């Protein structure tokens, strides 16, 4: 919930993605805007635009000339002179633009390619079962707090070679980065410094004792014959932690929330194992967690809107995924939807680097949950809480096992 901004009364001219109405249920807002104002404008955060159709979201995602990725989280802090300038940005490659982007991304693609991710499936399955064992015998329980929130953080922490016990620290930091976007700038910068100190300590430790993990890989890998700068390594590690945790936690949680409310879909998941391939993609489409952002790189007109250099642009892939002009029955979850070009992982050159990992984690988390608890329902729909900001997912899902 927005602690620092006044409530929104007009979504076409004054939207705010931390407003309680948006946090609770953003889909009706986007639906109304699609027909009345497909590119909305708000003066908040120093000036922000919001395209809501699949066509316009795609157009922004593909246009790396007019829209820079130098910052991808809308907040009261724009990248300043102390931050790495474009084209690298503070967390390469997500904050990088062409042509540097392709180089930075290429380094990171191999550890996240499908066949590399397959090797992490056994660890993930074991972790899910460990969590389910810890929950055993309790009823009701919380599908988000007891289960979903622990899975992605522990997988990425394992990949980076950080202590598993530090997982709660990451979750806290990421909550500040992604959700407390309307907090005053000084406080935000202070928290960033604390996290930087932690990451620096992990880097030092890996320089002293290299091992077979993603941190040592980043310290060792070469770009144009040179090792990466410490800032590049640090930025990439922050990216992997921030991007790899809240997002997938949200997708797992939203899927369990959907299944808790839809007994017919629950039964189909159990009775029709062949449906899982399309079902996972459909859950990703319907409950895509991630809204990205861009900064306008130069003054220009987009869809009749006078965009100014430095304006924010929210890039709501979840809205694109619910556009009825692009998806028939866009607001319905159709588990066997055959044609599904969803944009849950973005579009264009910034396609989510961890998409293969996220998809594996989502599938395994649901498989193991459904094996253990094929029948469950919400204790009370009103007690489910949702995250604020650009990553949308349920943060508490009290469920009763039936």
């Amino acid at each position, binding site marked *: 919930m927005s602690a620092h901004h006044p409530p929104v009364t007009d979504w076409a001219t004054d939207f705010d993605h931390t407003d309680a109405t948006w946090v609770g249920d953003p889909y009706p807002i986007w639906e109304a805007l699609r027909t009345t104002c497909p590119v909305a404008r708000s003066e908040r955060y120093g000036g922000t635009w919001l395209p809501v159709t699949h066509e316009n979201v795609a157009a922004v995602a593909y246009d790396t000339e007019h829209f820079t990725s130098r910052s991808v989280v809308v907040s009261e802090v724009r990248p300043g002179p102390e931050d790495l300038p474009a084209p690298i940005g503070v967390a390469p490659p997500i904050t990088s633009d062409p042509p540097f982007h392709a180089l930075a991304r*290429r380094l990171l*693609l191999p550890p996240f390619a499908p066949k590399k991710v397959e090797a992490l499936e056994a660890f993930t399955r074991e972790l899910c079962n460990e969590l389910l064992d810890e929950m055993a015998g309790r009823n009701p329980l919380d599908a988000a707090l007891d289960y979903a929130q622990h899975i992605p953080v522990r997988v990425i922490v394992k990949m980076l070679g950080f202590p598993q016990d530090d997982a709660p620290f990451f979750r806290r930091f990421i909550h500040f980065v992604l959700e407390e976007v309307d907090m005053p700038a000084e406080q935000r910068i202070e928290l960033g410094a604390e996290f930087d100190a932690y990451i620096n300590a992990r880097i030092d430790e890996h320089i002293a004792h290299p091992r077979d993990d993603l941190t040592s890989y980043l310290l060792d890998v070469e770009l144009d014959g040179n090792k990466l700068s410490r800032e590049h390594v640090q930025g990439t590690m922050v990216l992997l932690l921030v991007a790899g945790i809240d997002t997938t936690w949200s997708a797992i949680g939203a899927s369990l929330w959907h299944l808790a409310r839809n007994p017919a879909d629950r039964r189909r998941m159990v009775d029709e194992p062949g449906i899982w391939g399309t079902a996972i993609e459909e859950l990703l489409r319907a409950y895509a967690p991630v809204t990205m952002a861009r900064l306008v790189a130069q003054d220009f007109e987009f869809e009749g809107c006078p965009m100014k250099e430095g304006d924010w642009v929210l890039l709501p892939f979840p809205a694109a995924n619910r556009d009825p002009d692009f998806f028939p029955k866009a607001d319905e979850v159709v588990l066997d939807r055959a*044609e*599904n*070009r969803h944009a849950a*992982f973005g579009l*264009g050159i910034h*396609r989510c680097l961890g998409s293969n990992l996220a998809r594996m984690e989502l599938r395994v988390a649901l498989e193991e949950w459904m094996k253990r608890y094929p029948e469950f329902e919400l204790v009370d729909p009103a007690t489910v809480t949702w995250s604020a900001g650009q990553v949308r997912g349920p943060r508490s899902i009290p469920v009763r096992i039936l």
Partner: protein
Amino acid sequence: MRVHVDPDKCQGHNRCYALAPELFDVDDLGNAHELNDGLVPADLQAKARLAAANCPEYAIGVEEDS
């Protein structure tokens, strides 16, 4: 029937490889390419169309037999 992945459009979403591993493979970076010069056996034509219809980037071309 033939399928072809446009390498300039493919962004490695991995949807084709997941849906039709008989027809597509992915490289070490996760980018897709067609197998067997893109030739699609008769019994896999539906899968080929499905893979194309799930590519978010419209990177897969399907050439139907004339």
